[in-house]
């Protein structure tokens, strides 16, 4: 009987002690949690603030901070979106962004995969030197090329055409892509290629039937990375399409930001539209996305 009571009483005591311990542990780790939560909040709040503002009227934005939307009257409105989309050139620029981004991505990945195959699976004099040049080109600032490339486009009458940015993006993107894909391709098992060769498959078949399908994971990550890089690009489009009717969304938004003295606030809507595609891709394809963004720095 007495034994029974002690155990019955001891169990709650023990679990209470454990609970206090756990609580003490949490308390001790409170600064850690606080620091993380504050930093995360600081990283997220600017974006949230701007997205909230894009749904407020310009006069509200000018007289009270975005956080006042938490209290009535909330004053939600799509006015900024309507205003932005009605500005001459905004809708065509969104179309241009798509027409620039998709072909530019397709062209550079196709050319890069082919080049990477040569560097990974063929022997030729000067291969190492060519490849070291490619590694070096990865960090060359685009600024070093703008003037001569402008002159080349001028001679070829490509100035201000969509094709000019396809080609320029391809040229600028290739070194990194060839580097990355070559590392991936050369990691594929040699036996697969050798047995295909024994079976009489030429290089065209080995490339299209073996190398490309086996490289799909790397190509997928790279596609996301390249696609968003071109979609978000400002400098290349600004230089080669500066005043052309085909300038992309980023260039048009930038032009509006710098030309509006006051009342620029409705451009929040433009920023939300511009970043919704990258954010959607990030949220939907997180794992590929992070792999794509970080692939270059991590040893392949």
């Amino acid at each position: 009987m007495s034994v029974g009571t002690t155990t019955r009483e001891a169990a709650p005591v023990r679990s209470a002690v454990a609970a206090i311990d756990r609580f003490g542990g949490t308390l001790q780790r409170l600064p850690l949690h606080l620091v993380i939560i504050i930093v995360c909040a600081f990283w997220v709040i600017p974006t949230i603030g701007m997205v909230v503002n894009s749904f407020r009227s310009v006069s509200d934005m000018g007289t009270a901070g975005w956080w006042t939307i938490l209290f009535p009257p909330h004053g939600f409105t799509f006015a900024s979106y309507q205003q932005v989309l009605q500005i001459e050139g905004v809708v065509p620029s969104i179309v241009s962004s798509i027409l620039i981004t998709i072909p530019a991505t397709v062209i550079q990945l196709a050319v890069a995969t082919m080049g990477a195959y040569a560097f990974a699976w063929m022997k030729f004099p000067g291969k190492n030197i060519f490849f070291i040049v490619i590694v070096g080109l990865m960090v060359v600032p685009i600024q070093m090329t703008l003037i001569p490339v402008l002159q080349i486009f001028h001679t070829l009458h490509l100035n201000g055409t969509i094709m000019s940015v396809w080609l320029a993006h391809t040229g600028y993107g290739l070194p990194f892509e060839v580097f990355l894909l070559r590392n991936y391709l050369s990691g594929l098992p040699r036996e697969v290629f050798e047995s295909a060769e024994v079976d009489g498959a030429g290089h065209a078949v080995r490339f299209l039937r073996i190398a490309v399908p086996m490289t799909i994971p790397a190509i997928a990550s790279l596609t996301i990375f390249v696609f968003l890089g071109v979609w978000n690009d400002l400098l290349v489009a600004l230089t080669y399409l500066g005043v052309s009717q085909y300038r992309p969304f980023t260039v048009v938004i930038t032009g509006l930001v710098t030309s509006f003295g006051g009342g620029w606030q409705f451009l929040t809507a433009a920023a939300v539209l511009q970043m919704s595609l990258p954010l959607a891709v990030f949220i939907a394809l997180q794992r590929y996305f992070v792999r794509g963004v970080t692939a270059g720095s991590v040893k392949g």
Partner: protein
Amino acid sequence: MGGIDLGQVTTALIAIIAVPLVLLGYIILGEQVIERLPDRIQEWIRPYFWALPAIGFATVFMVYPLLRTVVISFRNNADTDWIGLANYQYFFTFPDTLTSLRNSLLWLVFYTFFAVFLGLIIAILVDRVKYESLAKIAIFLPVPISAVAASIIWKFMFDYQPPGTTQTGTLNAAIGLVGHDPVAWLVNATTNNAALIFVGVWTAVGFCMVIISASLKAISSEVLEAARIDGANEFQIVRLVITPLLWPTITVVGTTMLINALKTFDIVYVMTNGAYNTDVIATQMFTQLQHNHLSRAAAVGVVLFVAIIPLLVVNVRRFQQQEEQR
């Protein structure tokens, strides 16, 4: 609403379909021709045939322009005569360009330091909590956002109204709560460069954190356990065990950030366009280009490139070391 140019849509569609088809045709037809050649010629010509499109693009858009820019920087603006170092002399004596040089140095030091340091600290901190992946998403969120959108986001953070009126900018409202006067972040000479650099850091920390975090996971828990048993406290573990083990990764991330810092263009161009002495080398170059001072712009580009050469050498060396380990 403005007309959508159907001609351009067609061109784009053709490009998406035609370019891969052309490359496919190039590969298949080219290989058919090559396979008919004598073996020795085949072996010699095939690699160049495969690498040609990539090498061609790299030559036309990077190697040739790079050399040509160096030449232009020593010529007069009309490209009719050599003028020696005059364009460089201009760059290193004119106050505006000197300001851009100073600001790029500020970016180089502070952007790099804070992006890597915060990336490291956050990676170590979130490694210790259960909601790690959620916290990482929050920190990584600015990475996919374009510099153009980020600039608009931060224009609201830095928004300034005269003292006494309602502050609509988040930062000024926050410091108003503790009784501080509002600051004109982007105009004030002591804060504007720091403000711009911080926007850059905000977009870069997520990138650094993700890479550092990946190497952090590779450190075996036994090493850390051993250090704890030896009586090391958490700060000592971070300083004496984790950081040295992460050092190779930190240098890789650091060089990437140094290169980013030197190339910085978008954020400055959109937020201030170089006004109030916030110019950096890349925006300075673009200004010269817009004013049609081509040879001066080329000289600015060469200065930028020369600054990057040490990092280029580091990258090539690292590549060669990796090759030896393969």
